[in-house]
């Protein structure tokens, strides 16, 4: 590339002309033209190639895919006979594939528009350089500059594209499913087409029919469960930790180990064993009750007692976590606070209320909210212990101990009702996202506070 001395060229061709504007306008209409105008020929050629490919794509591929995304297909696959009388598949449109191709096309088109924007911007920038009387870099300089200064941008492009196609696209796809009628038995491709149905999945789920009844009841139990499970584990943990930390308690290490064991056993095993322990006819727990002359309880088979049992078993798993957490915090509380309190004649409860509890709460409140969000999605405990049973016929595909997340699992994997499952998924997301946001806000508010520092 020849590099002319730009300053003289720029000022010679008229003091009032703006190279920047001309280059930008040229690039706006034809990609690369502005770069040529700026005498960056190789770069201009590259942009022009993108322009050609992009335009071809936009006029040939894009309309078809976008149309597929809008209509979700016109003709489903079916069977026919060929000349020999053999049944053959007559392929048709597969709505779900059309939806994915449409999304890919849309994202690709947006990337093309973004490159176009960069091209205009680049032309404008270099035009400004010329306006200011500075030389524009040639291609070799641009590449060198790229290696020196902006290598990270180059590297980031790949993960960036990865995020677009492997994170954003599936999420958008999942959200879109909620606005279709993609569900068994009548709307499963390839023999059937899936249609857009707008918000009717949501209105069914929230207002009408058995879906609404199931949804609100399952939601209510999910929230109750999340609150109760979080609170019991949290205070259970504090309680156990404080007992172990009492003066005069011997074998502290042993106690800690014993309480940690339930957490260390894989839940897949321990919960399935629990299921047998709580068998109300033959399980050891009720057998012991009978030895004492009591009838025992219908642990896992009565809607109410099943819920109680789940909370209790969850404590057995969850208390160790809070306990370890609180043990760490307890050792960090300055001993002289307690000594001062003793001098003032404070009772044990007063010491707990005014020294221990504020310390513990201060350190763990954000975690508490996180645990709450986690419990909303606590799949293991419910699914392994009761599978959502005892069942009730009044619910659509759910049992009385099902959480939203286990219900969602049953809807997708057992019953292929994808649209409702997707809508439930979106609602769970909104729910948990609001708690996460709350959590982050709490964290910062704590950072700015300094009552205890």
């Amino acid at each position, binding site marked *: 590339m020849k590099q002319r001395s730009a300053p003289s060229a720029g000022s010679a061709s008229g003091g009032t002309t703006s190279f920047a504007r001309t280059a930008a306008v040229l690039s706006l209409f034809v990609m690369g033209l502005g770069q040529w105008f700026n005498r960056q020929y190789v770069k201009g050629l590259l942009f022009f190639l*993108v322009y050609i*490919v992009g335009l071809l*794509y936009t006029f*040939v*591929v894009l309309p*078809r*895919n976008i149309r*597929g995304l809008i209509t979700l297909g016109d003709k*489903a*696959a079916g069977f026919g006979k060929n*000349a*020999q*009388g*053999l*049944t053959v*598949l007559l*392929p*048709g*449109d597969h709505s779900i*594939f*059309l939806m994915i*191709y449409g999304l*890919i*096309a849309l994202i*690709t088109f947006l*990337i*093309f528009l973004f*490159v176009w924007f*960069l091209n205009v911007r*680049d032309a404008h920038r*270099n035009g400004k*350089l010329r306006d200011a009387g*500075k030389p524009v870099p040639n291609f070799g300089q*641009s590449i060198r500059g*790229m290696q020196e*200064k*902006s*290598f990270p*941008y180059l590297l980031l*492009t790949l993960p960036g594209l990865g995020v677009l*196609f492997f994170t954003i696209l599936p999420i958008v796809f999942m959200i879109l499913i909620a606005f279709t009628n993609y569900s068994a038995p*009548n709307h*499963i491709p*390839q*023999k*059937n087409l899936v249609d857009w149905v707008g918000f009717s999945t949501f209105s069914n789920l929230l207002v009408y*029919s*058995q879906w609404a009844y199931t949804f609100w009841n399952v939601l209510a139990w999910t929230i109750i469960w999340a609150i109760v499970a979080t609170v019991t584990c949290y205070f259970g943990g504090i309680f156990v930790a404080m007992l172990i930390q009492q003066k005069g308690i011997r074998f502290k290490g042993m106690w800690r180990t014993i309480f940690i064991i339930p957490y260390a056993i894989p839940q897949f095993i321990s919960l399935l064993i629990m299921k*047998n322990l709580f*068998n*109300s*006819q*033959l399980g050891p727990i009720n057998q012991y009750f009978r030895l004492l002359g009591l009838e025992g309880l*219908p642990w896992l088979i009565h809607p109410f007692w099943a819920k109680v049992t789940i909370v209790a078993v969850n404590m057995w798993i969850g208390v160790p976590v809070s306990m370890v957490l609180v043990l760490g915090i307890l050792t960090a509380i300055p001993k002289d606070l307690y000594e001062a309190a003793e001098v003032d004649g404070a009772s044990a409860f007063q010491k707990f209320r005014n020294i221990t509890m504020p310390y513990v709460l201060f350190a763990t409140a954000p975690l508490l909210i996180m645990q709450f969000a986690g419990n909303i999605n606590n799949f293991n405990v419910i699914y392994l212990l009761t599978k959502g049973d005892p*069942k009730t*016929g*009044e619910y*659509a*595909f759910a049992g009385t101990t099902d959480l939203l997340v286990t219900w969602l699992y049953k809807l997708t994997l057992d019953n*292929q009702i994808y649209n409702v499952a997707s809508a439930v998924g979106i609602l769970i997301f909104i729910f948990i996202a609001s708690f996460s946001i709350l959590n982050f806000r709490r964290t910062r508010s704590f950072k700015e506070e300094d009552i205890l520092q």
Partner: protein
Amino acid sequence: MNKMKKPWFVMASSMVLALAVSACGGGNAGTTEEAPADETPAAETPAEQTADTGELKPEEGAKLLVWESADQKAFIEEVAKAFKEKYGVDVEWSDVGPDKSVAQMITDGPAGVGADVFAAVHDRTGSAVAAGVIMPNDVFEADTKALMSETALSAVTVDGVLYGYPYSVETTAVYYNKDLLPEAPTDWNGVVEFAKTFNKPAENKYAYMWPAGNGYWSFGFFGGYGAYVFGSNGTDPNDIGMNTEAAVEAGKFYQTLNQILPFKTGDITDDVRKSLFEQGKLAMNTSGPWDKESFKSIVPNLGLTTYPTLPNGQPMKPFSGVKAYFVNANSKYPIAARLFAQMASSEEFQKKNYQMTGVLPAAKALAEDPDIKADEFTATFLKQFENSVPMPSIPEMSNYWTTIDPALASIWNDNADPKTALDSMVQQMKDLAATAK
């Protein structure tokens, strides 16, 4: 300004690359999507080629993938060997069990990554047909119909079209411990009488157990009294027969059995039954052929009999399952796949399968086979199979599964009026069907 320019240029040029790559990707997507339209005539060409010879030949360069469970691997390899010899086509096996193959085929088949031939339990046939992922059994229809038992055929027929190539049947019957009772009672009267002498709840001793709260295991009572789920052939979603007079009769009798099995439905788990059976505290335990070997190992003196006769004089009619091979409608080699399914389900290979893995054959003639008749267990199961109802295979069946268990639980645990419970169950089935519209 100058500093900023270069990063943007870099971004731009890397986006060029990105666009080029993704444009190709998108372009491909476009072409794959358009391809089906061109394929329609193409799909007919292989058949036209064979048209002049008049008999079926596998496609040139065909290569088959078969889905079956791991315990059938050896058998599939055996068939594959014979198939390779006869047609020169390679067959590969992959571990996808008959219970989950249809769900996977519904997603994998249209995407072009499904097996060419797969084994499935018949109760998902309706879903597979509704999704259009299985090929009708057209070429070998007459052969299959001549060979298989009536029940097996109707299980894999949807709307009058035969889809599957049945190879095995299974149903449930009553295993009993001959040390505890030498001869199993043939009717429920006998069972109840025996239970009165044998049952000792304090010692956890029970005469007869089955998962009472489960709609699969408890259907035998309803079937025996003449109740049905969907129409007479299990195909009419608008004719639900679970709250007919017959069904209520069955429900009433079912409820009386609570006295000989004083359990809550949720407590009768497989673990419980198996451990009691092993300890000699359970005299009769219901199960299918799949538990034969494990029961033999825990109960030395094991017997098997068909279900006891109901008080109305009719035998119980439990649900049965039919395992069949299906041809993937999207298979690249539909003719080779048909030939393989036909060969694997032929009488010769059903017998071989029985010898290798012990599964019950679906062929009528094999029920009379001297080897099989000599095997007391298989013969009993086949006898019970003759008196069974194939699980309805229409997609609405999921509404039955989800509503029957709570209905049984309320009849059994809470002593609810059978008519009320069954009426509400049927109403719920209708509601669920209505919401799916």
